[in-house]
């Protein structure tokens, strides 16, 4: 069975674990660097990106995560998407710099502006409910990046090679199509290596 980790420093870990398990893979909460070993893929959950980054630095997760991402699939939602971006608007430095894109934090406004909207996600399906909470969006992407979904002309889901990201929270609904999509990405990455 595929083994997929969920970075468990802070945020909606339990929901991702449940969604991964419902999508037919084994889920592991990752709190320490050594727990990255033997994983086939990793989810970076929603939460507060500044708080997560501080804990990533504190526990020397940054380099091990970048190394993990060299050949293993990573899926980031909301704060996880911010951690994966190469560029963050208004900031001099980014975090893991995995996906060639520029993101804007809290781009839809404050919590009172948080919303649900119906999305069309390429390769995943229509009538997908996106739950956006103080969400970021993707301002622009490089040529290697495939845009999977837009909301009002703003990019809210994308894929680059074995990296997947969403500005919304698939883990807060019981629609597991996006997690199933990621599990398939993990499956094919594993087959390529084998």
């Amino acid at each position, binding site marked *: 069975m595929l083994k997929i980790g969920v970075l*468990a*420093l*802070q*945020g*909606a*870990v*339990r*929901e991702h674990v449940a969604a991964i398990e419902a999508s037919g893979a084994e889920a592991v909460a990752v*709190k320490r660097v050594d727990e990255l070993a033997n994983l086939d893929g990793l989810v970076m959950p*929603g*939460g*507060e990106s*500044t*708080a997560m980054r*501080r*804990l990533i630095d*504190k526990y020397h997760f940054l380099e091990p995560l970048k190394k993990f991402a060299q050949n293993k699939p990573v899926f980031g939602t*909301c*704060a996880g998407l911010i951690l994966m971006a190469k560029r963050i608007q208004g900031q001099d430095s980014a975090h893991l710099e995995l996906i060639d894109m520029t993101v804007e*934090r*809290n781009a839809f*406004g*404050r*919590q*009172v*502006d*948080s*919303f*649900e*909207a*119906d999305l069309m996600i390429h390769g995943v399906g229509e009538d997908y409910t996106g*739950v*956006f*909470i*103080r969400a970021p969006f993707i301002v622009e992407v490089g040529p290697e990046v495939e845009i999977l979904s837009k909301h009002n002309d703003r990019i809210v889901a994308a894929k680059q090679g074995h990296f997947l990201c969403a500005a919304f*929270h698939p883990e*807060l*609904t019981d629609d597991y199509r996006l997690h199933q999509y990621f599990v398939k990405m993990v499956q094919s990455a594993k087959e390529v290596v084998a």
Partner: protein
Amino acid sequence: MLKTGTERVKRGMAEMQKGGVIMDVVNAEQARIAEAAGAVAVMALERVPSDIRAAGGVARMADPTITEEVLNAVSIPVMAKARIGHIVEARVLEAMGVDYIDESEVLTPADEVFHLLKSDYTVPFVCGARDLGEASRRIAEGASMLRTKGEPGTGNIVEAVRHMRMIQGQIRKVVAMSEDELMTEAKNLGAPFEVLLQIKKAGKLPVVNFAAGGIATPADAALMMELGADGVFVGSGIFKSENPEKFARAIVEATTHYQDYKLIAELSKGLGTAMKGIDISTLAHGERMQERGW
């Protein structure tokens, strides 16, 4: 179709705070220290609970200047407190763009009979609870997040422990009950039947439940996580300690790694004196904030 203020969006916001620490701050400088230390949100206040306790008199919503200053200082969510039942304070905070409102017993209640109908608002609310009856009533009114009441501003963890153990024990009891026993349990707890039914089916509360009220050390924060809290609020503990920056970081790390006791030992070294603390038995009933709320 775009929908704001839905139950999922309001409760989801609290889900994103899980495993984190929410810190009380009284100005922009403290807010920035909290954010840099890894807080997942800050609570903007005019005075921290221990100072409210010392000052006496009527405690109200903070001066909007302070709330605004904090809103502008950090990118993490900003919470603020409204008095229990004070519809206008809550609407003012919502209009200011505060991310979460705490309908809080730390302030002097504006209504001694009714709480806010929180489902009416676009902004989400957190409320305090001492037992499952109180927790369920707040959920039915529309609270999107709960916290233990504890006894704020005392630096004494005993009441938060009591409330967390009480709620967790009562949840276990409800989950184990057969459905035909639930109505009587609802009557005994003073809890809406529908909320108990939901808890029974899900095996847990439908909203996130943080610990609050008396957390003064990293070990206190870890203890509350051990007892089943989803995260912690630290009020007077941080900025009333000798070295707030170090203290704030230590609390954040102890909350993340609450079962890593060697780490907590390291974190607890040389933190300086924690806030002094008050023995609950020395507080007269009128001085106990936890008894506010109905």
